[in-house]
């Protein structure tokens, strides 16, 4: 069973975030108010924050240690889905999905309900469609650790829970460790089995 271990400090504006987490639960939600540093935590896990100091380890691999060791983002096997999706604007939906695919794209597109969009350009998609394509692109890269930043914020309620359940199932079937940042309790319920919260620049187990 994979373990995620984070013990880092990072400056965030005038503040200093101190994030400590150790868990073997492969479906973690991180909640907290806007600006608390949730997205920063995902960026640290993805290997995109060189300013973070401390330890990051996943599945008995050390990605970062206090002595300065640092495994770069492209060698971590993560799938990072930023909040606004960031689909590559010069590529079609199909090309975005296939960009770093290590597995078949078609079943993922079907699961996310985006199979019919494959020829479209990203700027012709709605916010919710973009989020689903960005999610599909990350899933197709067969990550070991999937990092979702408010993944369904642009979707309406029924689709949201349906997709939440589908992604949770997919993650369990493919042994993917999931960390989702959200402030929607339905996302937490659909995707996560353990919740953490950023309070006063620290990561603590969520109440309730």
């Amino acid at each position: 069973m994979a373990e995620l271990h984070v013990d880092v400090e990072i400056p965030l504006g005038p503040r200093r975030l101190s994030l400590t987490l150790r868990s073997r639960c492969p479906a973690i939600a991180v909640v907290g108010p806007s600006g608390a540093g949730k997205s920063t935590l995902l960026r640290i896990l993805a290997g995109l924050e060189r300013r973070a100091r401390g330890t990051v380890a996943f599945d008995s691999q050390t990605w970062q240690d206090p002595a300065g060791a640092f495994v770069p983002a492209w060698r971590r096997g993560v799938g990072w889905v930023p909040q606004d999706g960031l689909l590559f604007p010069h590529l079609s939906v199909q090309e975005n999905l296939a960009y770093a695919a290590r597995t078949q794209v078609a079943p993922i597109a079907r699961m996310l309900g985006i199979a019919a969009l494959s020829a479209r350009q990203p700027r012709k998609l709605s916010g919710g469609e973009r989020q689903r394509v960005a999610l599909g692109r990350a899933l197709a890269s067969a990550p070991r650790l999937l990092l979702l930043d408010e993944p369904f914020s642009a979707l309406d309620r029924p689709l949201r829970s349906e997709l939440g359940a589908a992604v949770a199932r997919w993650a369990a079937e493919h042994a993917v460790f999931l960390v989702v940042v959200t402030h929607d309790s339905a996302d937490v319920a659909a995707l996560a089995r353990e919740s953490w919260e950023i309070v006063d620049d620290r990561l603590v187990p969520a109440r309730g």
Partner: protein
Amino acid sequence: MQLDVLSAVRLSCAVGAAAAALGLVPAVAVAWLLARRNFPGKSLLSALVLGPLVLPPVVTGLLLLRLLGRAGPLGPLLDALGAPVTFTLLGAVVAALVVGFPIYVMTIRGAFEAVDPRYEEVSLSLGVAPGGTFWRITLPLAFPGIAAGMVLAFARGLGEFGATAIVAGNMEGRTRTIALAVYALLDGPGDDPRITTLALASVGLSLGALAGFEALTRWQRRRLEVDG
């Protein structure tokens, strides 16, 4: 005076095109460094690149002559390579390249800076190494801006005068570009009608290049549009 208008136009176009082509890789490399990396000496590199923009072209030409001319430190090497620059077409290309380099780099730097670096971060996080990310994301997204830089460098090379005259001279059929031909004719007796022809050719070429630049700049903006 023996002076062929067509040859001057052809030479100008050849010099501009060669300067744009030879400068492409260094301009992209320097622009990328300035847009995406922080390193010691970055301000110095930026100042060196911009130098020819503020120096009188004649002085740039003089510095090039001192550096690359027969008596200069690099002269013997260029001679040995069979590529001397003094009073040759290559010299005109080098002069056009150096004088146009600042505008080349600045245009491409702007194109790189317009690309949201988070696209590159997404690519890296998906397991695509920095080289692949540059080829598949950064370069295609900045491509219209890079092409716009090429067009500007070409246009700047078309009309280069000061540095070209110093390094390459003003030799009919060999280094006499449009600007040098106009200068030679103005120096001659009377009002030669070829001056008007050359001026019109110059205006036409420049307007065409600017139209191309505008179209490419619009394409660059559209390429990075997220909505629409």
